[in-house]
């Protein structure tokens, strides 16, 4: 066997990128006390809208902007359900995911039944030909700009403190003069945009095309990562890297004859099983944000 370590690390960074973007998006939302199960649908929406806009306009940049706008709107819609109307977060989030996926599939079938359109031009990797660092700019920005920025904003700024206050105890935050609704909407909208970028990375940078399985559960992986990380940015990034690492390893092992028998599904199931095991072992020590899954109503 010959494992190519550099190729492995390179693949790991690429696979981790959408998880970092969408995972941080979910983390921001959950810090404000809302579980957004619309993440799977929002990533799907970003992947689809980004692809469609890029295909029609001929520019990946237009595609990325369109995906971001779609993500903002999806986040605002979740805000309407979870904040304004105070609906059950898991039922409305799941409903949002089902709606967005069905809507994208509908539109894709309507426009391109039986075709397989591809982009003429997708995002190109930087430093082509080099090992490991031949990554997309979204990968660089995700790891080197977004993650530190999210860590700094959430941990060290007044804005982050407001989000934290609302997420931990919205009655107290309200008494302290923080608008609960406005803070949660802001978190949902920013988070939605980040999720959509994670989805758009798949179609605009990796594939250059769209298929109905494009997201295939990556949103649920992000939900798992955020809890695994106990709502901390760096741990979420580390979790994304670990998951992507096992994933990349599995892809290499599958083409290595001696390891062809290791079921790849086991590797893919690892992030979910790890989270459940971590919850089981961490037990009551795992402290959810205080406002988790609740809706705020004054009086």
């Amino acid at each position, binding site marked *: 066997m010959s494992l190519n370590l550099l190729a492995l690390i390179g693949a790991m960074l690429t696979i981790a990128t959408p998880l970092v973007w969408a995972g941080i998006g979910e983390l921001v939302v959950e810090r404000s006390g809302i579980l957004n199960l619309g993440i799977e649908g929002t990533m799907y929406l970003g992947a689809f809208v980004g692809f469609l806009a890029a295909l029609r306009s001929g520019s990946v940049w237009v595609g990325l902007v369109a995906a971001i706008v779609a993500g903002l709107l999806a986040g605002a819609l979740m805000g309407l359900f979870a904040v304004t109307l105070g609906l059950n977060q898991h039922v409305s989030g799941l*409903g949002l995911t089902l709606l967005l996926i069905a809507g994208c*599939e509908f539109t894709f079938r309507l426009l391109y039944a039986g075709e397989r359109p591809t982009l003429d031009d997708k995002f190109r990797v930087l430093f082509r030909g080099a090992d490991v660092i031949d990554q997309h700019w979204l990968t660089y920005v995700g790891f080197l700009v977004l993650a530190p920025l999210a860590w700094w904003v959430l941990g060290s700024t007044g804005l982050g403190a407001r989000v934290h206050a609302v997420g931990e105890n919205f009655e107290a935050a309200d008494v302290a003069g923080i608008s609960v609704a406005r803070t949660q909407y802001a978190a949902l909208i920013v988070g939605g945009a980040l999720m959509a970028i994670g989805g758009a990375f798949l179609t605009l940078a990796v594939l250059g095309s769209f298929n109905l399985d494009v997201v295939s559960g990556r949103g649920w992986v992000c939900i798992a990562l955020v809890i695994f990380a106990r709502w901390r940015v760096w741990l979420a990034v580390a979790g994304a890297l670990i998951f992507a690492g096992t994933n990349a390893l599995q892809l290499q092992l599958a083409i290595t004859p001696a390891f062809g028998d290791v079921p790849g599904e086991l590797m893919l199931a690892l992030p979910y099983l790890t989270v459940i095991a971590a919850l089981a072992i961490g037990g009551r020590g795992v402290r959810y944000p205080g406002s988790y899954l609740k809706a705020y*109503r004054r009086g």
Partner: protein
Amino acid sequence: MRFVLRGREPRWLAPAAVAVGVLVTVALTAIPIRLAGANPPAAFERYLVTPLTSTSGLYEVLLTATPLLFTGIAVALAFRAGYWNIGAEGQFLLGAIGTTAVGTGLPDLPAPVALPLGFAAGALGGLAWAVVPAWLKRRVGIDEVVTTLLLNPVALLVVQGLLNGPWRNSESGFTDSDRLGTAYDLPALVPGSRVHWGFGVAVVVVVVVGIVLTRTATGVRIRAAGQAPRAAEFSGIAVGRLQFRCALVSGGIAGLGGASQVMGVQHQLTSGISNSYGYTGVIVATLGGLGALGVFLVAFLLGDLSVGAQNVSLVLQVPAQLGAMFSALLLLAVLSAMSWRRYRVQWRPPRASAASESQPERGPTR
């Protein structure tokens, strides 16, 4: 004009809210139908009415509603008990695995043994998949929403792992399992139709759960545990144990759905055996008001819509995903409309001094 909380809720309000939700859904789905170049009224007639106008169409509706009856009532039972099981998808898949295991492992049993065994194996599979989150909830106090959800993709990976590995079809080499022994084929409920006895079993299960929930002391305890767990605990109900049991039964019922789909329709395990039935079950249960009658009606409606959508996609070239869009929109629209029930419009402007706020933004809790 402003919105204030209602003191009392008139009786017409809930049906009116549902009607508003349905109207909004119809109006919103008319847009994609229009975009697809079809005439919305004609398309809606094909979606909702056409399947019911022929006997064969009606049978297809019942066939399509069957898995939704299982997952819908499974979710409804758990939600009633205050246990947010959104893992019916995984439990359904494990039920299908259980049934396939006995159906391919013991293919030569006589039908009177094979059929109950197939259902039992399915129920056991679903129940087994529900145990871990239920146990974690009861013993460690871990929120079940996330654990039940995360086990869904794992269940799909288990199915795919089996089909890529040990259960790969021994004749064709495709990634679907061998055919179950013919004794496991559920007979047709009506000779000549595709409606199988799984529908009969589903009806029995829904009715039994409905009776238990509304007509027995256990049902009272379950509903008390769901609506006011603290008060229930004070009145001597072992809420934790009750929720644990409901979670297991819920998983078992979802597993029965998988068994029914394997023995009645596919006769083998495929990775597409669950067409999101578990997730749609959440829609069925929620829209059905977590009751047996509601589950019947909504499962029937979504079955009707799904058969209609297949039909429309062939005739009017509107993609069949419109059915899924419609059901998700219906869920969100009806829930939204229902949440407004608690408010009424006050037309008189409030006095300046009484600037107390009760804006709708502070929406009602779940």
